[in-house]
């Protein structure tokens, strides 16, 4: 199965590194969609079929926490799987993200091996329904 992935991170170099990392794995990607903040991410989700969102937290315009709250409040989008990759170290904020239903949390700097292992696990549990 090939996946459509949405990368929501204000750093274009992080998005490039993620795309490069996927290129070195067996994970098949149909399309990468990119968004520099949560607002653009939500707009993309409303237009495109997305299998998984990879989300940063600290972003301008709409941060990752606000994105998650908006996502879960939207009946059409609330079940979209999300993996967070962030520098956020606060336990309280991580717990809040877990309450909002993220599938996994990776702390930057995540190694490519950690990233691949996590995404393989998460994507393995995703099917087009």
């Amino acid at each position, binding site marked *: 199965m090939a996946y459509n992935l949405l990368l929501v991170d*204000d*750093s*274009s*170099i*992080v998005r*490039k*590194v993620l795309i*490069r990392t996927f290129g070195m794995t067996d994970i098949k990607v149909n399309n990468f969609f990119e968004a520099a903040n949560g607002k653009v991410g939500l707009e993309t989700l409303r237009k495109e079929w997305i299998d998984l969102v990879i989300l940063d937290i*600290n*972003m*301008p315009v709409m941060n990752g926490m606000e994105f998650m709250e908006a996502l879960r409040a939207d009946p059409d989008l609330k079940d979209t799987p999300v993996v967070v990759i*962030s*520098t*956020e*170290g*606060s*336990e*309280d*904020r991580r717990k809040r993200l877990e309450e909002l239903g993220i599938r996994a949390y990776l*702390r*930057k*700097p995540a*190694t490519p091996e950690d990233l691949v292992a996590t995404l393989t696990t998460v994507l393995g549990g995703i099917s087009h329904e």
Partner: protein
Amino acid sequence: MSNADTPLGRVSTKILEDWAMMFVEEVEPRSEIFDLSKPFYFGSVDFKGTFSGILGVIFQDAFLKAVAINLLGMDGDVEPSKADKLDAAAEMVNILTGNFLTEAYGADEVFDVVAPRVVELRSNTITEAIKGKQVVCFMADDAPVAITMALTTP
């Protein structure tokens, strides 16, 4: 005591080695490690919480280029775009700040951080930029870099 043994030093070493994939060697914090004839950049992130302050990184183009090349897996003789270089620096400051705050103050503390910014510095301000702050300096892939932290509230 080496500054590399402080929370700022430990986190800086880890991020430069593990994330930026650089070989790092701690050097004495002084402006002469830089090439004073070339432009300087200052990347920084403000944080606010129980403790508030600013974490900054001072570097020059050689460091910017090395980080971008390593992250993007480019050949060493290829020149990354200025946008990629500055974006790589901004992300590095962001990662440094997030990891430093947890290392220094623990996971129970909650901090708000603003998006990183990178500005050009004049060479005659370098001494001032590292004075009176926690600072650790490295040669990273033979390029100088100074990482500073200053609290604005105790």
